[in-house]
């Protein structure tokens, strides 16, 4: 076994000890907490209340900058297809926040 393979095995063993408990066949892991947060902007509270129920904020910031129509499409998909309980009256505010955060002109 060469040096690199051995190093990886040791790394794997340490990684398991630190984070995954294997006992009598049971595997338990502790997933790291979320660190990224929504950035300040108009509509932040509405976005926090509606967007973060189902997913972390990186879903928003990893997107390419989207147009208002595209962000509206995303919000309506979350509401109508993915079951997000976004009140009708909050949709415009959420869309405005998302465009302000990561939007582009048409």
């Amino acid at each position: 076994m060469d040096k690199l393979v051995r190093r990886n095995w040791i790394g794997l063993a340490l990684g398991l000890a630190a984070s995954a408990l294997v006992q009598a066949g049971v595997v338990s892991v502790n997933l790291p907490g979320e660190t990224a947060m929504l950035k300040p902007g108009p509509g932040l509270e509405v976005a926090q209340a509606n967007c973060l129920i189902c997913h972390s904020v990186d879903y928003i910031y990893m997107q390419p900058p989207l147009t208002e129509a595209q962000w509206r499409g995303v919000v309506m998909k979350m509401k109508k297809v993915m079951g997000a309980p976004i009140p009708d009256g909050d949709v415009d505010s959420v869309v405005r926040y998302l465009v302000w955060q990561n939007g582009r002109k048409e």
Partner: protein
Amino acid sequence: MDTNRSVPARGHRLNASRRGFMQKSAALGSLGILGGIPAGQALAKVVTLPMENGTRELVTYPEKRELILMTARPVQLETPFEVFDEGAFTANDAFFVRWHLAGVPTSIDPSQFKIQVRGRVRQALSLTVAELQSQFDSVEVAAVCQCSGNSRGLFNPRVPGGEWGNGAMGNALWRGVRLRDVLQKAGLEIDAVQVRFNGADTAPMPATPDFIKALDLSVAMGDEVLLAYAMNGKPLPLLNGFPVRLVVPGWFATYWVKMLDDIEVIPKVDENFWMKPAYRIPADPCACQVPGQQGVVTVPIHRMPVRSFITNLSDGGKLKGGHAQTVRGIAFDGGYGIAQVLFSTDGGGSWMRAELGPDHGRYSFREWSARFTPRPGRPYTLACMAVNTIGESQRLTPRWNPSGYMRNVVETYRVHAV
């Protein structure tokens, strides 16, 4: 460590000069501030994928080495591309992670975990992992697991979705039992049409569609479709679907349902959200459409197109001039097997045949290598193009579709000889 399995040695060819050849700065990025990360985390280690908003944090999750964080909840982790230079098989701790629903169980007791087989069968079954292992023949297959959205972030124009680079893929030696054997034990009813697969992950809201995938019987009954309980000779990492996941060699990973606990034989074609409208491609042979085009007929995504990559150089990298250099890479397709890989040092103007590495089977990564002597001070545009055994090759121009699926353009790498 499990020593009684013939696990292909990872990194068996690695040595100092091999690593030294790779110019890593472009691939690894530099320290910086990631949008959306609070001030206290400003020194998080990050990489920048080659796309707008491509800055990602590097994180270490349970049973995983340092990987690229795409999303934290549900968790999605990308394999840093230099990992693919370690050999034909992707280590379990480096294998990419993609969950659809936030409710991923974090503790699994395999002695209690049961797989239901039900629906249009003569006798419903409920099997523990131990029962799977003891009641059915075990089979091993080397197969590439590639996310449908792999490389989505490289689409132009960009499309919304999981913005992966090229690292949402991996190759492993899977061991498990044939789905066919399990279905035959249950006995199919005459009106069986498809088999639906559900895992133990749960949706955050009652109205969220549960993640369920379906295969036609003709696919589900295939020789190499497995209920896999081992990956590269070890149990699956929890985040890769411990204790059992479906393995559908040649097909995109969307069908490789993780923490598989429910197999339902149904008398019709499934049209749940994750089969329609999600995970569909234009029905034409190209799987292409024009941005904005409406009324496109679609089919469920299925077999993977042929792809190849260089693994020991990255775009923007440097290599040593004046001496013969080895360029290495990997190639794979949807199960016909790689027949040849062509290599170019002039952006595809001329091609030479690369040497293929060991054949681990038609669903596996196939390593390849080519040698050339760069002249110091000159730039080169390297490119590779794989051809499979039925003559399919990679596209010379990228296809486009609104979900960002099926990228298989010939990849090019601008490098500079010093």
